[in-house]
């Protein structure tokens, strides 16, 4: 006799695509060739199309090949320019992830254009050196899993770069490495925009770790927590005094957890 839970487990295993490795990689896109954003619909009626079915069908049928085709053509047109430069966009993307893994401040900051921007983060580029010091103090390890080009255009190439992340806290708590990704926009041989300096990881994967560390810090060093965290405890302070405390208390925390 099979129980309810066993049937449910069987259904879970019947997943036709249990791993992304089983499907073909997605083609790069070139969003600049999509329709004018000013004509975007704000309604939930996109699927109740008012265009003819033939027109809809034509749009669907050329969209993916068009993305790929345009990306290839544009890519071929600009490759000679990059050949003259010191590095291809792919090299820059890979170099960023390697420098990040090495916590190499000079190498990381040298890869950014002077006017580079960060899209979604509490940190800005000027804080990168201090952020790296914080990572070093708390044993952060970003293991790159590869950069994939996702968009190609005349002004920039976009890459999504994956990584596995762990630090002294996750290791002490036996928390498995967490995967994440960063999107880099590279113009020529410089990073012109990055989504995040820290991570695009699923924060829910690490909530338990953050909570455990905050609880321990608050219980054991309540006075210093004010120096180590911002007022709302949403991010660490990055001045030298705070980073010295982070290093000291991370060592203490790990020693206590590991007994």
């Amino acid at each position, binding site marked *: 006799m099979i129980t309810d839970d066993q049937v449910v487990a069987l259904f879970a295993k019947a997943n036709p695509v249990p791993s992304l490795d089983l499907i073909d990689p997605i083609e790069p*896109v070139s969003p600049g060739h999509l329709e004018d954003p000013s004509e975007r619909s704000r309604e939930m009626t996109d699927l109740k199309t008012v265009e003819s079915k033939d027109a809809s069908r034509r749009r669907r049928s050329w969209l993916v090949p068009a993305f790929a085709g345009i990306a290839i053509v544009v890519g071929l047109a600009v490759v000679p320019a990059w050949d003259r430069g010191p590095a291809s966009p792919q090299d820059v993307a890979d170099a960023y992830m390697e420098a990040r893994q090495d916590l190499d401040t000079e190498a990381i900051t040298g890869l950014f254009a002077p006017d580079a921007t960060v899209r979604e983060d509490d940190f800005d580029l000027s804080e990168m050196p201090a952020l790296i010091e914080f990572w070093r103090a708390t044993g952060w390890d970003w293991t790159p899993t590869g950069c994939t080009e996702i968009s190609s255009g005349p002004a920039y190439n976009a890459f999504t770069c994956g990584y596995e992340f762990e630090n002294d806290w996750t290791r002490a708590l036996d928390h498995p490495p967490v995967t994440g990704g960063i999107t880099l926009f590279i113009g020529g041989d410089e990073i012109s925009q990055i989504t995040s300096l820290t991570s695009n990881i699923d924060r829910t994967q690490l909530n338990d770790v953050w909570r455990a560390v905050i609880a321990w810090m608050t219980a054991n060093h309540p006075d210093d927590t004010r120096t180590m965290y911002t007022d709302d405890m949403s991010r660490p302070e990055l001045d030298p005094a705070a980073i010295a405390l982070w290093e000291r208390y991370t060592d203490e925390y790990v020693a206590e957890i590991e007994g």
Partner: protein
Amino acid sequence: MKTRVGAITDDEARFVEVYGRFARPIEAYCARRTPASQVADAVSDIFVVAWRRIDQIPAGDEALPWLYGVAHRVLSHQWRHNVRSRKLIERLRGLAEVEDCAPEVLLVRNEEHRVVLAASARLKPVDQEILRLTLWEELSHADVAVVLGIEPTAVKQRAYRARLNLADEYRRLTGERQPPAARKGGGS
């Protein structure tokens, strides 16, 4: 106002980021529910909607359930179109049965899996989708609620009943009986 970094508009950057992060899970979502020949079209349609509604895409990881919601509607639309097409083909060719090329037919080799998928096909469509979203996409009830546009409490209740009904249908197909006291205290 749209700011530009080089030639990148905010909208483009956002779209590329969303595409880069979520195209693969969306492709997998489609591959789990539609024949392989239609996956690329479905992914294109989903990201066309995403581009048109780029301002409405939630930040960070919350974008994925939102995209699954779009995917759910796109595939529902595609499925209705396919049913109409299939009926038309049957009439034109006089075929009693058109070959089913759904992904589970192509990929599922295990007999037990075939039976449990057949059992799931006997459930209401929304309950089938709740099972897939929770067990294949591994979404929380809150995220499933975003995808389907229903309340999280309703998802929780439906998920519970869907699991019981799935087991009942499976046993019905295999001729097995329910284990004694298997649902002690259960029910909602």
